[in-house]
Each structure stands twice: as C-alpha cells, then as structure tokens.
C-alpha cells in the first residue's frame, strides 16, 4: 500500500473520529441561550406570560421590552405567532383572549420608521 493511500486512510478515519467526537461525544453545548432560541411551545408560553402581566400592569412599553428578547422582529409578530400556535394547539379561550388583547394594543402603536428611509 502506497504512502498516499495510507495518508488517505488516515484522513478518512481521522475525520470519522473528529465527527464522532464533535457531534456525539462532545458536541457544542449551548448552555447560555437567549429566549429567541426557545422551542415554539416555550416561546408561546413566554408571550402568554408577557400578556398575562400586561393585562394587569397595562405597561405596553414593558411588554414590548420583554417581547424584544425573542428576537429582532416587531413584538406584534411574536404575539401573532403565539396566537397561531394557540389556535393550532387548541389552547383555552381565556389564554387566547389574553394574547389577543396584547396583540390589539400592540397593533395600536404606529410602526416605527425604518432607519435610512426618507
């Protein structure tokens, strides 16, 4: 067996070992995630918590701030996503109403002008 063949065999098994180690034995650990990485059900529940708190404190700015943790999209989008998730999963009517109230109030805020547009 030639040197090149041995080198290729070594690379092949080395790659296998590397992938095994990197994907199975010691994969990248995401232990410090942000709320935007939450699974759909947890994200929806996060939005529901924001909506529940909002129903009492009526602090829309605080609600928007909390929803901003879910990503860079407008907070209304996350609320609508949560409502969609709730409808798909047949959640109870009270929770849907709570989410809907937050969505209605968020919708009442005029959209912020995009930077750079004249």
């Amino acid at each position: 067996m030639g040197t090149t063949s041995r080198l290729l065999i070594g690379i092949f098994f080395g790659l296998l070992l590397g992938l095994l180690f990197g994907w199975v034995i010691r994969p990248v650990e995401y232990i410090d995630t942000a709320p935007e990485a939450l699974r759909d059900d947890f994200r929806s529940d996060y939005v529901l918590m924001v909506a529940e708190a909002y129903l009492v404190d009526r602090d829309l700015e605080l609600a928007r701030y909390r929803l901003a943790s879910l990503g860079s999209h407008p907070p209304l989008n996350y609320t609508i996503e949560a409502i969609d998730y709730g409808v798909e999963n047949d959640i109870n009517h009270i929770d849907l109403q709570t989410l809907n109230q937050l969505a209605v109030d968020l919708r009442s805020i005029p959209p912020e002008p995009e930077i750079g547009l004249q």
Partner: protein
Amino acid sequence: MNRLGNLAILVGLILGVAGGLYYSWAINPVEYIDSSPDSLREDFKSDYLTLIASAYAATGDADRARARLAWVQIADLASTLGRLAQNSLADKRPDAEARALAQLAAILGERPLPLIASPTPRGAATTTPAPPSPTFTPTSSPSPTPSPTATASAPFSLSTKEAICDPALQETQIQILVLDAAGFGVPGVKALVVWDAGQDIFFTGLKPELGPGFADFTMQEGVTYSLQLSQGVGLETGITAESCADGDSEPFAGSWLFTYQQSASP
C-alpha cells in the same frame, strides 16, 4: 517505507481529526434552536423568573407558576427568587416586581414542585424530545385562586412585639410576621426600615421555609431603627439590639419579632 507509511497514517489521522472537529464544531455544529428555559443564560433566566412572577401576580394561578418554575430547573429556587427581589429593590425597579417575586417565593413553601417528565438534555440536536406539556395547554382554565395577599382596605396593625434571645441565631435581626385576618401569612408585604444613616426595604415571603408572611432584616449593634409596614398602621421606633444573657454564657445581642395582623374586613 514501512515507517514512512505509518507516519502517513498518523499524519492523515491528525489531519482528519482536525478536519472533523472543525466541521462539527465550527462549520456545522449541533444546532440548538429548540431550547428550554433551563438552558437560558443567567441574566435571561433571571428575566424569565421575574416574568413568571409577574404573570403569577397577575393571574394568581399557582399551579401554572409552579409548572413554569419547574422548567427553569434551579436548585435553590426560593433563595434565588429572594435574591432577585433584593436586586430588584436595589436597582430601584418598581416595587410590584419585588412584591411579585416575594409572592412567587411564598408559594414554593406550600407544596413540592412538580417533576418534569422529560427534561431536555443539553446539546441535543434539533430533534429534541417531546416537551413536557407546557402551561400553554388546551385545558379549560378555572378561575385563578390567588394566594392570600394584602388588600389596601384592611391595614395591618402590630399585635405583638417579642424579644428573641436565641444564641443559635447568627445575626441580630428585626423579624416580622404578617398575618391576614384569618391568621395566615401574607407574602409580598413591603416593610421599610429607617435608621440614621439610611433606609432599606424588604418583603415578606422571600424565605418561604419560614412561612409566607415572614421577613427579616439584619441589624447592626448600636444602631437605632424604625420600622413601618407599607400597608400598616403606626410606626415602630427605637428598635435596637437588646442585650441577652443565657445562663453563664456571655451576653449577646438579641433580635426582635414584630407580628402584624390584618384587621377584620370593614
């Protein structure tokens, strides 16, 4: 040649491992897009706990709050909530936030947290196991039953003031116990302590193991304090660490326990 061949295999292995690790760690790492609250970064986890507390304060749904707390998977939850409440006060955030955290801490003492059916393992790929059924469940939600909280219409008044001479107590404390008209502890009641050089605020319920209506404040010897409940009647003044004697042992500084009770509804 044989030696050169073995060297080639070794070099190949090293190159291969390096390439494999680079691919699996940098180019195409395990994606973690479906995380659960327990994997949140510490600051986000604190925000998450505060949000749970705010939602609980709004709805009074203790079962839902417990389920949400269980997903965060924090070992010493009560003290964590207490620390968050203290931080909230120190950061001059709204009192409602600290009060909500105190009320949430108080429900921990009522019964154990539910176990999570299938905790999400760290580092799992996008195919994470089925979620523990979130609070966001298709069940009919009965009217929430809030834990006892103070009402502005029924103030608390001091019912007893006791000196505590307990050498086992590590600190000299002002302890308060706030009870409703029925004699149950009330969490989330704000107390203000004032002394010459400053003041501090603390809330009942941050140590649920001592009861939902309990709170304490550490005194300094030689300092005179005043105490007032935000929803209380009257101001207690001249509170100092009294000297206690226990048999033949050296005198030590004692503590005070103030018990407040809500008057019957008007």
